């Protein structure tokens, strides 16, 4: 029972490490040394569901495929319960399709690991390069096709339209613009009262934009907000 206790963090890592329902099933099968061709469906289904519940409890993003697999397992389980005509050799084992998928996935899962082990550039091998010592570097002029020009213009227009579209909503109350305005206000007065930077007439949106602008400026360390004691007036000045 050495692996009886897994710290919750580690548990989450384990749960997150599954690459989907097939991977989880292979893990359960491998863990118990079961032959993949001899899956005890009832037991595996139970364990599978326990893991799925754990993932839910851990609030992991549970891919829909896990639930689909749960349904598949449930279906296989019930089909296994149905009596089959004795001696009917042609009747397919209900597990056949699933086993087939597990075997197929396992092949690629294993080979992906081997791919990872191949020597690769930047980890095991490094490209050997030297400088090109050229006393008279040839200035090659880029070639441009006429079509490229048209395509480029088309692209610009499309983007301009899109940008302008954004502009409409942004222009009215631009945080950036407001930041500039606040900086201008602070240029003329060394200290300004915090409240003076807001204009009530602008309504709630205006207040919010001003507030965000002040926060932005603070973050950029362009302004400093000071308050000498609790509930005292708040003052704002430029950081310089």
């Amino acid at each position, binding site marked *: 029972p050495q692996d009886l206790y897994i710290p919750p963090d580690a548990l989450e890592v384990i749960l997150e490490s599954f690459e989907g329902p097939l991977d989880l099933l292979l893990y359960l099968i491998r863990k*118990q040394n079961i032959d993949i061709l001899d899956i005890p469906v009832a037991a595996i289904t139970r364990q599978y569901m326990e893991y799925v519940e754990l993932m839910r409890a851990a609030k992991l993003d549970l891919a829909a495929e896990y639930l689909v697999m749960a349904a598949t397992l449930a279906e296989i389980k019930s089909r296994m319960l149905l009596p089959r005509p004795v001696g009917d050799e042609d009747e397919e084992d209900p597990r056949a399709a699933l086993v087939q998928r597990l075997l197929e996935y396992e092949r690629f899962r294993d080979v992906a690991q081997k791919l990872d082990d191949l020597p690769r550039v930047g980890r095991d091998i*490094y490209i050997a390069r030297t400088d090109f010592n050229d006393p008279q570097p040839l200035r090659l002029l880029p070639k441009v096709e006429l079509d490229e020009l048209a395509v480029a213009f088309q692209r610009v227009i499309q983007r301009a339209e899109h940008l302008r579209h954004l502009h409409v909503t942004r222009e009215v109350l631009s945080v950036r613009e407001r930041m500039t305005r606040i900086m201008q206000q602070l240029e003329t007065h060394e200290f300004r009262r915090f409240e003076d930077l807001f204009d009530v007439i602008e309504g709630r949106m205006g207040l919010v934009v001003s507030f965000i602008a002040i926060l932005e400026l603070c973050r950029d360390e362009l302004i400093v907000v000071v308050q000498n004691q609790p509930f005292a007036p708040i003052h704002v000045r430029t950081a310089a």
Partner: protein
Amino acid sequence: MREQEPVLQEHSELKNIVEAALFAAEQPLTIRNLKSLFPLDAQPTTEQIGAALKQLESEYDNRGIELRRVGKGYRFQSREKYAPWLRRINEGRPPRYSRAMLETLAIIAYRQPVTRGDIEEIRGVGVSVDIMRSLLNRGWVKEIGHRDVPGHPALFDTTAEFLAYFNLRSLSELPPLKQKREPAEVARELNLRLPLETAATEELGEPHESEYPAANPDAPHSAEIIQLAHISQQDHG
């Protein structure tokens, strides 16, 4: 003169040019690329280039770097055994790739050309856009057309850059994929192992010794999980 061609002088100009070019180029150079370094009226033959490459290969034997063919091109690269020292030159750690990415790449490499649907079918989960984009951006994978089925899904295969990155001469150098088991064979084996009577009893909740031998100490699997579920809930609740 003809029979003399393949044997190059130790420091022939041709060999030196090939050497310098391989080192200066940004990508592996093919024999065709190497030929095109020379003016048309003085172009060496494929055999001459081949001989120069061969000569270079042997000259770099036992050095810190080696001449290697990747895909159809040639490049010089450090020997694998010196990687532990060279890793210290570049600050950042070499990138590690997620299993999702490697499995996706493996399926494309061995099964090409494939659609995203093919990959999802094998892996049993969706392939995220990020993974495909990442593979495309790295230049390891490219779109080569569309499958002629409803929806016309894009077909992907691997590129020359993929071979170069993984130090492969061709796809045939990929690690071997385990033999596929034929569906018919799998079905037959399943039926063999599952006598009909067992099928019925197994599922009726009777303790199934062969499944969980009582002697086996790591049987209390489910209890363990339930306990863990508690822990996990405490932690997150």
